[in-house]
Every structure is written in C-alpha cells, then in structure tokens.
C-alpha cells in the first residue's frame, strides 16, 4: 500500500465508524422505506414511481445525502485539525496535492458508500413495486453528482474553519432550499439543482423538473460542473495545506 492509499484507507476508517454509518444509512434510507410502506397499499405503478422520485429527490438527494456529504467532507481534514492528529498526516514527505487528493477521495468515497446503500434499497423497493428496474438510474447519477459536489467543496472549508459543518448546513438549507429554489437565476449556483438536472435528464417527466430554474436537464453538463467544482476544491485544499496553519 503506498502513501496515498494509506491516507485514503485511514481517512475512510475514521469517517466510516460503525455508529456513524448506521445512523447515516438509516437517515439516507428514508425514501426506500416510504416506497416500501406505500407499496403495501393499493396504489398503481405510476403513482408508486412518482412517490419514489418525489421522496428520492426531495429527501435523499436534496437533504439526506448532502448532509452526509457535508459531515464527511468537513471531517476529512477538519477532524485531523480539530482532534490534533494533523502532525501524523501533514508532517510527512508527501506533496500537499497528494494529501488533498487522497482525503477528498476518502470524503467522496465515504458518502458514496452511504449513497450505494440508500439508492440500492430504494431501487429494490421501487423496482419490485413498479416492475421498472431501470427506475434508479437517475437517482444513482444524481447521488454521484451530490457525493462529488458536496464531498469535495467542503473539504477545504473543513480545514479552514471549525464551523464548517454549520456553514455547510446553512448553505444547504438557506441558499439551496430557499434562495436557489425561489430565484431561477440562482439555480446554477446550487449543487442540489445541478444534481437535479442530471436526475431529470435520466428520469424525464418527474414533477421535480419544475424546480430546475434556469438549468437545462443534462447529465453531461451536471458531471462537467461537479468536475470543475472538484478541481477547484482540490486546488483550494492544496493551497490551504501549503499556506494556512495546520494546528
């Protein structure tokens, strides 16, 4: 195992603790449970599919997974600083960009682990209830966009401030859920809306499409945008590791 893999391994083990993973998976599995519960009643496939998409986007991708990603991303380097273990990571003959890339991969990976379980459970519940086993393609790509977007941008913020998680939640609930929803021109600044644009492209006709604002549906566009966000975050994290205090 080389140095970069060692950092990814230890960061993942720190982020994915048993208690944490159980809590986050339960939190993120709410949409699957809703569909499972609804499927026991007398509803048609179309209504169950709508319910699945509404809860998947409205709860999983708009709230649960971003919260999971913010917690993981702010902890990836922020916990090293907060818990005073930074010397064991930073005082090593490793280029700062390599630390930045490795911890960011761990942050995104930890969120994807939760996303895989949550989307997988939803897929099983919705697929068996509607007979449409391709129903989870949009959610899967949307979850990937969320994990990369939130999972990268909050890594440097976690390094720079102890209040990164609070800042992340304010961004999520104030900016994304309020302003970007209310003002169409602000939608492109919202990671949630970018994820929705990918989701809608793969699941056309869902009611959430009305909240896209100025964004056009498009998987390619969404992935390009989060790739840019990830790149900017990596540069910012590397800069912070080089220029800012690490204790």
């Amino acid at each position, binding site marked *: *195992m*080389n*140095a970069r893999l*060692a*950092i990814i391994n*230890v960061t993942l*083990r*720190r982020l994915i*603790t048993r208690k944490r993973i159980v809590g986050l998976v339960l939190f993120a599995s709410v949409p699957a449970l809703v569909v499972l519960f609804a499927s026991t009643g007398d509803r048609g496939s179309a209504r169950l599919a709508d319910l699945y998409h509404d809860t998947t986007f409205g709860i999983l991708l708009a709230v649960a997974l971003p919260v999971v990603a913010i917690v993981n991303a702010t902890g990836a380097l922020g916990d090293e600083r907060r*818990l*005073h*273990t*930074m*010397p*064991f*990571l*930073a*005082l*090593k*003959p*490793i*280029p*700062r960009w390599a630390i930045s890339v490795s911890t960011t991969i761990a942050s995104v990976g930890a969120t994807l682990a939760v996303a895989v379980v949550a989307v997988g459970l939803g897929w099983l519940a919705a697929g068996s209830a509607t007979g449409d086993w391709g129903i989870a393609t949009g959610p899967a790509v949307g979850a990937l966009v969320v994990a990369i977007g939130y999972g990268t941008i909050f890594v440097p913020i976690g390094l720079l401030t102890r209040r990164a998680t609070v800042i992340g939640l304010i961004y999520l609930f104030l900016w994304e859920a309020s302003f970007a929803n209310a003002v169409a021109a602000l939608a492109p600044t919202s990671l949630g809306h970018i994820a929705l644009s990918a989701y809608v492209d793969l699941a056309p006709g869902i009611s959430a499409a009305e909240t896209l604002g100025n964004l056009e549906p498009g998987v390619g566009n969404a992935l390009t945008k989060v790739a840019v966000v990830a790149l900017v975050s990596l540069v910012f994290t590397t800069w912070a590791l*080089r*220029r*800012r*205090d*690490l*204790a």
Partner: protein
Amino acid sequence: MTVVNADSSTVVLQGVSRWFGQKVAVSEITAEFGAGVTGLLGPNGAGKTTLLRVLTGLIRPSEGTVTVFGTDPRSDPSVYGRIALVPEDENVYGFLSAAEFVTHNARLQKLPNPIEAARQALETVDLSEVADRKLVGFSKGMRQRAKVAAALVHQPEVLVLDEPLNGTDPVQRAHLTRIFTDMGRQGRTVIVSSHVLHEVERMADRVIAMVDGRLAASGTVPALRTAMSDIPLQIRVDCDQPRRLAAALVERDWVGGINVEATSLHIRSLDAEQLGRALPGLAKALDVRITRVDPEDESLESVFRYLVEDR
C-alpha cells in the same frame, strides 16, 4: 536573545515571532539547533508548543524564518523524511492498533518495508506485546510511547518532542529518556520541551529557557542552575517557636529577610541549600520543633520570570 547551540546547525530560527490576534505567543526568537539533545524549558504557556509547531512547519511564523536542513519545511515537504514531531496532544487514531498506527506512519514516510520498520520501532519503545491492541484502549503513557514509535519509525535526523514524558510512569520515563539521549549521542538533533527542570536535566546537554514567548536564558544545565542560584527563594518553615528560630537565622548572610507569624516563618534566602543544611542543627541547638519546610515560590515560572527581569 540569540542562541547558537551547535557547530553544524540542522534547524535555524531567525527572528521568529508568532502572534494570535493580540496575543504574542512567541517573540523574536533566533536560535540554532544541532547534534545532541537540547531542552526547551519553560512554564506552561511560555510558548514552547507554539515554537515547536512553527519549527516543524505546522504553523506559520508571523515574522522571521525557519529552516530545517537549509529549507523551509512548509515549502518543501520532502524535508519531513528527515524530521519527526511527537506532539503534546494525547490524541491519536484510536481506531487503529499500535502496529497499524506505526505502520501507517511508516507508509507515509515511504519506507520500503513499513511493517518491519514499525515492528522495530514498537520494540524500541517496548510496545511489542500490545502492538495489536487498539490505541483507544491505551493509557496516556502507552499512547505517548506509540507516538514516539511513530516518530522513530523512519529514524529521523531531527526529532522534536513536545512534553514527551507526560503521563508516563517512572520506568517508562527512564526508558524514553535513554532513547532520546542515545539519539543525541548518535549525532541526531533532539529538541525536547518540558516544564520540569529535572526531566530536562536528565536528557539535555543544552537548555533554552522560555518565558512569555521570549528566550529567557540558554546554556548548559549547570550554567542555568548557577544562574538560578542567585535567585532569592521564599521558604516557609512551620515550628513551635518561630521568633526564637528567626532570631538565630537573621544573622546569617544568606538570609535576605524573615517574616514571622504565629506558627511559621517565611524566609527569603539566597541559598536554599545552605538553609536546608543549617535548619536541623539550629532546631536541635535551640530546642525548636520544626513540623514543615516548603518552598513557596520555587516554581519554574517564578524562577524564569526572575531571569527575564534580570536580563
């Protein structure tokens, strides 16, 4: 104050200051460190930890420069292959076993055989038997040793230790002290901070004393002790006839002054050792029963403050 500690310096601080908002933690420190053990001595809050963090590149100096092997560690991380820090903080990756923790550090040092290097480092600090136990269950002293093992795993040329003996028992303390002094003898640069004089005395060839973020004194341990011998100390003596004992003591030239209370004396003495030697004889001759003798201001803080004021 400028301190030059070695013929061939590995670590050089040039006019280093560090402040946090309005608080000056370290002020204009110029010092050089080379082969051997150098003790960084000072009371809690003197700025030792901040200085060591600046020295290792963990935090930036507000002013001045730090070079390790001629390079600024913050701009050239490759230098971390030659240095190591044992931080004061107790925290380690509790979810890892001692072996995993040290092996992880060996991997980050890019050692060719990290598992073997970790095994040797754990053996050095006497943790082989508990190598597979999770660090979360370790005592403070065991964690200290695990951190030392992690620092030693790549056999650094410069070892920086921040209060490394905290939480260790006497046996562990003696063992760690021997490791550090051996490293110094091998020609490595060992910088060890402590607020306990006798701890540093056992390890260090040279001492730098810090108070309020400034260098207060430097030199060999005996030289520092001599400097401290001029400091008047206040000693409290509880006895049944304080006036009688005071009358006998006040004639001595090493007594600077005496305050007499109902059952005790507060003696200002320039030579505490002589006072200690004289008291039993005087008590016997005067038939005075002494129940307690305590230094009242022998803390490092008061000693160092005296040194700073005296400069």
